[in-house]
């Protein structure tokens, strides 16, 4: 009973790690892709320039380790568990007593539930951890030194991390002290004391379980996981996620259609998958929606339509700032587009990070060549009148790409799908002969049935 806090800490850490490895694993790459920690003075200065922002700096430092499959999860599980351990150790140092109600568990459990939301700011965990850590370190000082230093440290912590954190620390410590000092006077029987602790732990665990299940968003998880698979070009997994997804989502249908093409099933199975948004299931028309800005580039990149991919990536830069995926995209597109100096500026940024510096060096070597593996830009129009992209409608762009490069199979299949979903049968039949450019074993049944129908209506 004396060392129950170590047992609880170990169990908590283990449970958190299990959840992070399993049900919440998808959140780690998501958070990692939202920011880019740089080892530079100017990056630090951004966070020092305003009171209360240092917690974000610590959070970003921790988040960069989410890049690694296990390290980030272990680090976060430890930090979150320490939110329980540190106040307990502090109180033991100050009063020599244990809290029978284990109130110190509450911040960890609360933040764990909050962590389920992709919009959760991890700086809340790191800032609270920093505040608890500082308090614990202070508690190691002699009593007199603790009294003298605690208030200045309290103020300094509030200034650096935000006022809420030292206040929360104070409240938790106060409640824990009250519980540790008062309850043993009221409860003298060790059995009742023990029962009280166990009852509290059951209550905390039950409520956490209930909240976790209640707030768990499977649709969000599937969307995030799908994007992760799209990035890794794991197309079968994308289709699996699409099948599991309940409800309508334009983004899911957009990814699903991409996967249909890459698995060679687009001309066969297009209508077997939901196309609730019609032609807009194939692409994301530009509607100035900041949240969509980071998804539009995928399709255009795969079509080789680099200028449009670059436009979407630039808008994502405006909305989300310098994140690793956006910078990587801008590097690749600018190299492919012959804008070496622009790519170099993004490469220099990436070189200042821990986990992307090697990729940056790779692109630095590629920059003068103007070629990026996996990117095949649509041939440039030479000597012709300028042509401008239709950012609202994919159809004219697909026709343009097919005309510029008749071997672009993705553009052809997307054009056929576009014409099917928009019920433009006549145009579909007109463009169908282009299929001879590609080695289909036979005419896809979907295409054949539309062709047959068209012929029947013409007779």
């Amino acid at each position, binding site marked *: 009973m004396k060392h129950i806090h170590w047992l609880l800490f170990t169990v908590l850490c283990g449970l958190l790690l299990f959840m992070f490895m399993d049900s919440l694993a998808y959140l780690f790459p998501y958070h990692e892709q939202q920011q880019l920690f740089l080892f530079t003075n100017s990056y630090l200065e951004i966070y020092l320039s305003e009171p209360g922002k240092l917690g974000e700096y610590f959070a970003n430092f921790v988040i960069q380790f989410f890049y690694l499959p296990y390290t980030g999860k272990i680090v976060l599980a430890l930090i979150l568990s320490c939110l329980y351990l540190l106040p307990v150790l502090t109180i033991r140092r100050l009063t020599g007593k244990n809290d029978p109600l284990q109130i110190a568990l509450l911040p960890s459990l609360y933040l764990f539930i909050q962590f389920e939301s992709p919009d959760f700011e991890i700086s809340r965990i790191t800032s609270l951890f920093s505040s608890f850590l500082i308090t614990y370190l202070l508690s190691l000082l002699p009593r007199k030194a603790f009294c003298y230093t605690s208030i200045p440290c309290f103020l300094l912590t509030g200034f650096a991390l935000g006022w809420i954190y030292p206040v929360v620390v104070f409240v938790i410590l106060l409640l824990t002290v009250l519980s540790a000092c008062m309850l043993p006077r009221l409860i003298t029987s060790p059995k009742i004391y023990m029962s009280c602790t166990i009852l509290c732990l059951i209550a905390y665990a039950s409520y956490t379980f209930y909240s976790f299940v209640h707030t768990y968003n499977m649709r969000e998880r599937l969307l995030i996981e799908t994007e992760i698979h799209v990035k890794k070009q794991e197309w079968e997994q994308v289709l699996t996620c699409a099948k599991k997804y309940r409800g309508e989502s334009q983004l899911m249908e957009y990814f699903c259609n991409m996967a249909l093409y890459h698995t060679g099933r687009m001309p066969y199975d297009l209508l077997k998958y939901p196309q609730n948004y019609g032609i807009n299931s194939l692409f994301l028309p530009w509607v100035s929606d900041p949240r969509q800005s980071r998804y539009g580039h995928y399709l255009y990149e795969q079509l080789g339509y680099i200028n449009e991919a670059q436009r979407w990536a630039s808008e994502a830069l405006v909305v989300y700032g310098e994140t690793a995926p956006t910078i990587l995209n801008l590097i690749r597109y600018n190299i492919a587009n*012959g804008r070496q100096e622009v790519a170099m500026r993004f490469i220099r940024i990436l070189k200042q990070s821990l986990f992307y510096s090697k990729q940056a060096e790779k692109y630095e070597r590629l920059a003068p060549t103007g070629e990026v593996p996996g990117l095949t830009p649509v041939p440039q129009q030479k000597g012709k009148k300028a042509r401008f992209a239709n950012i609202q409608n994919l159809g004219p762009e697909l026709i343009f790409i097919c005309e510029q490069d008749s071997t672009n199979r993705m553009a052809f299949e997307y054009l056929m799908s576009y014409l099917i979903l928009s019920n433009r049968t006549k145009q579909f039949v007109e463009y169908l002969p282009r299929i001879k450019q590609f080695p289909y074993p036979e005419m896809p049944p979907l295409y054949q049935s539309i062709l047959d129908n068209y012929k029947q209506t013409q007779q």
Partner: protein
Amino acid sequence: MKLSIILLYIMLITACSQGKIVPDAYMDKPPTLFPDYTDVTFPVNIAPPNFQIAEDGEEFYAEIGFEDKVFFTRKNKGGEIMIPLKQWHKLVSAAAGNEFYIRISIRQKERWMQYKEIRNSISIEPIDPYLVYRLLYPGYELWNQMGIYQRDLTSYEEIPIIENRSDKSTCMNCHTFCQNNPETMMIHIRGNNGGTIISRNGNVGKVDVKKPGMNNGGTYAAWHPGGRYIAYSVNEIQQFFHSTGKKPIEVSDRESDLVLWDCETNRLITDSLIYGPEWMETFPAWSPDGKTLYFCRSKAITTQTSLDSIYYDLYKIPFDAQKQTFGKPECVYEASVIHKSISFPRISPDGNYLMFTCSDYGNFSIWHPESELYLLNLQNGNIRNMQEVNSNNVESFHTWSSSGKWFVFSSKRVDGLWAHPFIASFDPETGLAGKPFMVPQKAPGFYKTFTQTFNLPELIAIPVTENKQSLKQIRNKLLSSSPN
């Protein structure tokens, strides 16, 4: 014990001093610096121009001085030379009106190679000490992160005037000052709570520069020198994205006209001479006496007009501030004849020169790599390409300092995407400019990694932040939905 203290003292002295090096060889060419601070003229009040030595080497040594006196030395392995403010001030005080030198030696294969001496000048003329610009990522339509900032050119301090952090759906643009004085200024706000914030001598209001029947609201602005009127162009702007090729975008007006906002009566004034369907008028600029309004004008376009056939000429129109009437418009420079197009006319404070941006077509010169600065001598009508400041990439927006001895302009010469502010000296006697230099930054490599673009650099003589009450009101108006 004493010996240890002496040894420690010697070690400390050796560690801190940047001992002079003796070159093993000499090179007859100056080293490449980034930013290029060679053969330039600095104003007497500029912050230290820190730089990187952009040459290969194992160790770098820089020595900066005037005549026989060395004011600063630095030896390091990275090649970044940061001049302490104190030493820089001493050098500037001593060398004002003269040239100073930068001697650079580089250790390559264990031999110190001294490069040809770099010579820069210090002008006794100070520049307006504050530069106001908008910082934003180089996107096209979204505006989730942006702000208007004030940079103290005598130090490196940059402070936000307004930022859209609190309300990400708000775009702010076209900060405009009356004769380099922030006591009379305006800023447009787009999106939620849109409007135009006008600050005049401590009175801050938010207005809608548009009246019923008008298709478009106020866009590009110019304060009348008297501070009562603001000339606006009212533009419908469209963006077009190139399908292929290096050039990403074209921006063009579909229609534009000129109006005047009377700040005292809060009403719009215009005239069929500058407002109508036949022409597109834009980029107003007042002469310093306030009697003439310069602007750019093109024939109105149709949906069939190709963008590269839109040319803007330079026009002027007399204005009577008492009667609020306009005279007859007159063409000053018919650039369309030679298939060129004009934007951003700005007249020097003495009224003798008009600087403008010239590009092959259209008026959104910031996306035209061929756009360059030109100078029109209003006394004799001569027009010349300002080759001494132009590069093979974009030169666009520009502002005169209140003395007319300096100007700042946007250029994309570093890599073609990001606009950076450049300062150049100007001699009103000869009409010649000095070699431009990038606004100094504390970190010498700043411009190599900073991914936001400097938009509309405007020089001001006193800080916007001096009138704290006005600034507070401006920030409040950003979030307020009600006019006035």
